[in-house]
């Protein structure tokens, strides 16, 4: 598991309440998720309770509390994607990887999330794996695309 240099992260902030969300985003950027240890360190730095931090972090869907997979799959569930078969595409990914969305495969190769809208609506349906975006997706192209990722 990656070690986070918390002192380094906190040094960029003043320690105000408004720093909480950017700090959590910075930590998740390094660690891949928000660990209990991270919440403890943040609580000490900002001088607010761990409870309150968890309350804020759990409100926002960006933050995860379990370790991600090596590759992150995001299936777009926006309107244009839905109208062009987004739900069916998501189920096909779940079936292919044998996990439901919000979870990670056992071998930690992939984690799967549904996201609200990736903003590429004219080319629906869309999925994103790490930084790669695949547009005009079909169920039959899935296997070949997933095989590209270790």
């Amino acid at each position: 598991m990656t070690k986070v240099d918390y002192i380094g992260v906190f040094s960029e902030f003043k320690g105000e309440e408004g720093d909480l969300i950017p700090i959590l985003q910075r930590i998740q950027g390094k660690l891949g998720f928000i660990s209990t240890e991270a919440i403890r360190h943040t609580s000490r730095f900002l001088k607010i309770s761990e409870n309150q931090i968890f309350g804020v972090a759990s409100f926002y869907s960006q933050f995860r509390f379990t370790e991600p997979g090596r590759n992150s799959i995001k299936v777009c569930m926006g309107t244009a994607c839905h109208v062009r078969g987004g739900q069916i595409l998501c189920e096909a990914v779940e079936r292919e990887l044998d996990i439901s969305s919000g979870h990670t495969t056992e071998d930690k190769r992939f984690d799967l999330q549904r996201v609200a809208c990736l903003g590429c609506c004219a080319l629906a349906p869309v999925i994103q794996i790490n930084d790669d975006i695949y547009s005009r997706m079909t169920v039959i192209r899935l296997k070949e695309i997933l095989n590209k990722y270790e």
Partner: protein
Amino acid sequence: MLKGSKIPIIYLGTASCGRAAGAMAVLESVQKTLKRNRLKGKIVQVGCIGPCYLEPLMDVTLPGRPRISYANVSPEKAKKIIESYLIEGDPQPKLAVGHFGDEDCEFTNGIPRFFDLPMLKPQVRVVLRNCGFIDPEEIDHYLANEGYAGMMNAFRKKPEEVIAEVKEAGLRGRGGAGFPTHKKWEICRSSPGKTKYMICNADEGDPGAFMNRSLIEGDPHSVLEGMLIAAYAIGASQGYIYIRAEYPLAIARLKKAITQMREYGFLGENIQNSGFDFDVTIKEGAGAFVCGEETALIASIEGKRGMPKSRPPFPAVAGLFGKPTIINNVESLGTLPNILRNGASWYKGYGTQGNYGTKAFSLVGKVRRSGLIEVPLGMTLRKIIFDIGGGSRKPFKAVQTGGPSGGCLSEEFLDTPVDYESLSAAGSIMGSGGLIVMDEDTCVVDLARYFLDFTQKESCGKCSPCRVGSRHMVEILDRIIKGDGQADDLSRLQTLGETVKRGSLCGLGQTAPNPVMTTLRYFRPEYLMHVAEKHCPAAVCRELIEYRVIPEKCTGCQRCVSVCPTGAITGPRAEPHNLDPSKCIKCRACYEICRFDAIAGDAIIIRSKRRASDEQAK
């Protein structure tokens, strides 16, 4: 600076849409082709010029000749065009989609003018004027195109005069509510206190909308210049841009633009000797749709849960950290430089009374020509969908406007002008600009459930009617699409919808029932078919449909057998295959491959059975 270039310029659309369509592979091919042939050429990566369905787009300008645009360019096609045009002088006119010259000439070889194309001709690109024409990462390009001239005009006036100009122009908030921009500003300006905040709302959460993303990616300075104008008008010296984290490219472009602004003295103290100080911080959203709402957005910047507050006090009086705050949408801000540069009367030349100016829309869904468009307010839905969008391949069914807060309008509303009041009268709203077109393959009951499921999940939970009411409405819709609808479900939905609307504190709850209410109003027969006859005419609702093989069309190629995850399709080669409905999970894999594969016979159909209504009594 690009106009007088002595070497060829190659423009590539590498905003998020372009990238999703494969633009980066085209970029690589262009770079390799230039290098391999030792050709001189400048590559400029630009934003979205509009017709996303034509991405990847590559444009080539040879010195002294008009810019020529090529659509759906693959890496191989790019190589062919570059080699043909730059080495042999043949622009491959058959592969071109349009040219940007003022008129046709000997060099345009029968290629039509880009802006005369049916999708572009009715459009008026004001806010999007630079997208696709400048490199968004070069402040010099922006400056060469009258950039920051609007801001300098504003500085020459008093703040009250700037507000008056915006009032005269009749600009209404482009984020969805359409509230007169100048009014908010006036309240903030006259609120006591020296510390005031200016916030840009770039949280674009409506699924199906990407106008703000495209503007920031393609022309970030237009938004920043607008922020400066607004901040000057209200007297704020500190600003925030609240942008959703799901837009990493837009965030990167903003960061670069801000750095360049500082270098050129457009941010900081005494900007351009105006006596006005201003600086800006970027705050990334963390995935909460409700944070597009003003008070929730403010709470989020303050490091709290994004839960809306009751108003009054309005943010313009007491907002961020309790200080007078103005929140404006990306598109509203992007419009300001144009108003301050060309004047309010120029702006009023577009649009209709009370609805002046232009608006950007994302025209997507089942439409031939999907993409980012900008039209004068007041243009009819029919003109937008059919003239600009080219209509849908299958019969048109409905258009959804306003995202999850909006409504589905049926065919009878096609002649409605797109303006704030007309759309509200029809039961929908303008919203941020998403226009989702649907054909007969879309089930409105399924769509209503989709939207309500979205708003229910995004509800902050504070108000019981919203939190519980929307959940209950989703449960009822779930039963209906599964074929378990009951006789009084529709009236129950109606009552719940009205309760949620009236009992919610913020816009999310107040508008969440809209998709259901409008579809109940305009598509009631479809609901009745689901409830009484267990029939889904669009053949979408899983429990109500079945897949079948048409034996006469089946070529026996076994393509479907190889993709079926449950072994529901079986059959030896060269004989019509068998589909066992008890094993079929309706995943679409066989349907897709039978349609697209060259050997297959397009032999699979999806149908909804109509069951007699007296079966329900059992």
